[in-house]
């Protein structure tokens, strides 16, 4: 039974599942509501026991894109060496997914990074704070509608004159 068939038997036909292959990349796309169940199934039933990557891409200006954020989970079966990319779509105004920290503790900082850079919330995350940008930073800098040079955050500091020292 293929990965897709196995997932479909677990999640049902309405789970917006699709599968594609390009060179060595095996890719599964799944609807956001079923993403956690799919990853749980892939980990505990099929054997993709390691999460080697969790990242996101913003498809805002992408031609023909139907959704805004694609969150990508990179899974590795450490017994067979097989890799699988699982992608799911979330949209504004409140992009949110269920946290996979209960499945992989290593997802903790990765989800914080995705939240920091794209503003995708992970529900059930134990400590969803910014990880790279300063706490008081107000934007999500890797969103495509955020200007490359920022909105002036990099220059919003007091200026020290020589006499202040």
């Amino acid at each position, binding site marked *: 039974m293929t990965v897709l068939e196995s997932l479909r038997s677990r999640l049902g036909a309405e789970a917006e599942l699709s599968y594609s292959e390009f060179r060595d990349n095996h890719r599964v796309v799944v609807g956001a509501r079923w993403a956690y169940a799919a990853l749980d199934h892939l980990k505990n039933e099929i054997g993709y026991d390691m999460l080697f990557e969790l990242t996101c891409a913003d498809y805002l200006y992408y031609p023909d894109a139907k959704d805004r954020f694609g969150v990508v989970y990179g899974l590795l079966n450490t017994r067979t060496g097989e890799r699988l990319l699982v992608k799911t779509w979330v*949209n504004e105004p409140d992009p949110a997914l269920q946290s996979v920290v209960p499945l992989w503790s290593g997802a903790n900082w990765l989800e914080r990074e995705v939240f920091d850079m794209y503003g995708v919330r992970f529900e059930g995350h134990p400590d969803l704070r910014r990880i790279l940008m300063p706490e008081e930073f107000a934007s999500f800098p890797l969103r495509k509608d955020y200007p490359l040079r920022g909105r002036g955050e990099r220059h919003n500091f007091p200026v020290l004159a020589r006499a*202040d020292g």
Partner: protein
Amino acid sequence: MAVAARNENYFLTTLDAAASWIRANSLWPMPFATACCGIELMATASSRFDLARFGAEVMRFSPRQCDLMIVAGRVVMKMLPVLQRIWLQMPEPKWCISMGACASSGGVFDTYAVVQGVDRFIPVDMYVPGCPPRPEQLLQAIIDLQEKIKRGGTLTGVEFERRKNPEGPPPFDPQELKRRVLRQEQIPRGRMMKVNSDGTERDRRDGP
């Protein structure tokens, strides 16, 4: 400067000149090394280039013991408050060298997170161009800084107290921001249209 007296056992000078001469020849650098310039800074201090020849080899990692800050590498917006705090912690008199393209201007990193030159926020005495600069360039900057220290230094450091105004470029140009906001709005909305399941169109920026 010093005036040689007839008796060779003493000489006359001013306190200002003596203090400046002493300061110039025993600079204690604070290596604020955040990137590849830091590697060149280490090379400068090592045996081949030997910063000790110019009396500035005692690198201290506590700002309380330093009088020359060498900002070597890019400074991001999260690091800048740290840089300013370290600069304020250094005792007077003190000087600052901005080493390399990134510390002086942001270099190629013209992004939201990288400060476009530390001289916007702290006073800088000497700039070293290069990406990264050769150790010889840093040595030359230290030699030039020694000249600068000897030229105008006073015992009391009153020349620092007079510099009450920021000397770098303005930290932020509001016009620049306005231009960028305009450019964002010029992106045609049609490129962000999504077709709903019932055939109607909506802008993806407006949410589902």
